[in-house]
């Protein structure tokens, strides 16, 4: 395991933004009415906010960042680092972080780069930012978001009902206090085909065939330019890798499950998260959940759950957080960090985001 720590890290604020358009899974006709309730109960996703008309992950992150910078009263010229984590950037090149640096009016002295990751992306992004902060970069913005709904096929019951869209901003700064963040990051690329988009990269550029629907199973039709999700493999991977990884990290830093105030997991689906919770014997009150109304927002799910699942009042108090992301790659990562006085503005619902 890649285990490391970063000192002097302070999370000052977390903000999140979702598009105003919602999609209710009870309206999803591709699953028979008789099966719908059982399906929604099992995956735990009743509705999702979706970007249906061109709003990108960076648009949602931009709104979250603008609000957060205002609320924590940072001067924009003092921000020296911007990291954008997403698997739905604006362009193949350049890095979306550069566009956000300009759009947010940040200084040219601000370094800005992308990390192309999905469900584990927040923890990976936080680890990179934390290490740079501990090297005395004073202030950083970690912008994390995805618009997964754009890449799903309506005629694919294995992925369409799961994904929602969101963008988030996390403000991280150097603190004289010796606050240490701990990380455990892991990868198993042999399983990459369990969750990926086959066409659109340089390995398989988009061709006419990429845009043709093909049957992959009962109720599963999709294009090669859309998300391919093997639910069984992702479930098996998550239950096999995540609980031992969390136990290992906790043991490494001599903490117990009881010492953690909140376990903020990637919001994959209820089936996966409930079973991870059961395996680790985590009380459900310590596992905030935003699946019901936001679904799986890929890289954004952990910060969105901090804002909507834990909330501003609790985040002002001292908390020991364990954050765990897992998914496409296959990739998984866990972070443990103490927080206090974290500013969490109310969730932004971006009106007209789908226009």
């Amino acid at each position, binding site marked *: 395991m890649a285990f490391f720590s970063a000192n002097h890290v302070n999370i000052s604020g977390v903000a999140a933004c979702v598009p105003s358009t919602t999609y209710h899974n009870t309206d999803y006709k591709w699953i028979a009415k008789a099966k719908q309730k*059982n399906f929604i109960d*099992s995956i735990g996703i009743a509705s999702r906010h979706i970007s249906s008309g061109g709003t990108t992950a960076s648009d949602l992150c931009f709104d979250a960042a603008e609000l957060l910078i205002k609320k924590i009263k940072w001067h924009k010229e003092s921000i020296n680092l911007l990291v954008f984590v997403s698997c739905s950037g604006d362009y193949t090149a350049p890095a979306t972080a550069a566009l956000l640096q300009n759009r947010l009016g940040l200084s040219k002295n601000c370094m800005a780069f992308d990390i192309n990751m999905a469900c584990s992306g927040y923890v990976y992004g936080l680890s990179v930012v934390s290490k740079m902060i501990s090297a005395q970069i004073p202030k950083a913005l970690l912008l994390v978001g995805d618009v997964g709904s754009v890449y799903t096929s309506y005629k694919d019951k294995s992925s369409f009902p799961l994904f929602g869209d969101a963008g988030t901003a996390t403000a991280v700064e150097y603190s004289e206090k010796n606050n240490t963040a701990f990380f455990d990051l892991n990868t198993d690329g042999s399983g990459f085909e369990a969750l990926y988009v086959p066409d659109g990269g340089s390995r398989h550029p988009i061709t006419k065939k990429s845009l043709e629907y093909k049957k992959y199973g009962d109720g599963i039709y999709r294009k090669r330019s859309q998300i391919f999700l093997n639910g*069984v493999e992702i479930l098996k991977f998550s*239950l*096999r890798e995540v609980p031992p990884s969390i136990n290992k990290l906790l043991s490494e830093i001599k903490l117990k499950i009881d010492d953690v105030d909140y376990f903020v997991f990637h919001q994959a689906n209820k*089936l996966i998260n409930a*079973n991870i919770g059961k*395996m680790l014997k985590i009380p459900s009150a310590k596992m905030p959940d935003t699946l019901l109304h936001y679904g799986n927002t890929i890289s954004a799910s952990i910060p969105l759950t901090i804002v909507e699942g834990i909330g501003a009042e609790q985040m002002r108090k001292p908390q020991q957080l364990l954050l765990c992301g897992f998914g496409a790659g296959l990739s998984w990562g866990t972070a443990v960090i103490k927080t206090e006085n974290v500013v969490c503005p109310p969730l932004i619902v971006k009106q007209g985001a789908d226009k």
Partner: protein
Amino acid sequence: MNIDVFIKKLEAEITDLPKGKLRGETKFIEYPGLWDSLNIVLFIAFAKTEFDADLETEDIMQAKTVNELFAIVMQKSGK
């Protein structure tokens, strides 16, 4: 773990199965469409969490009866 306890847990997990009617010798063929993708992932998660058994979809599909499914789970159980 005996078969009666397994059946109770199975009924609780797979809500498409009728409560109180399953027996060890019950054949899954009596419930057409039971092993759809959702019920397969529900059962795989149940087997992992309750029995530390790593099942494949094929393991479930090859079990013709409740007894056979129970035997496969026990065989693969790490507990």
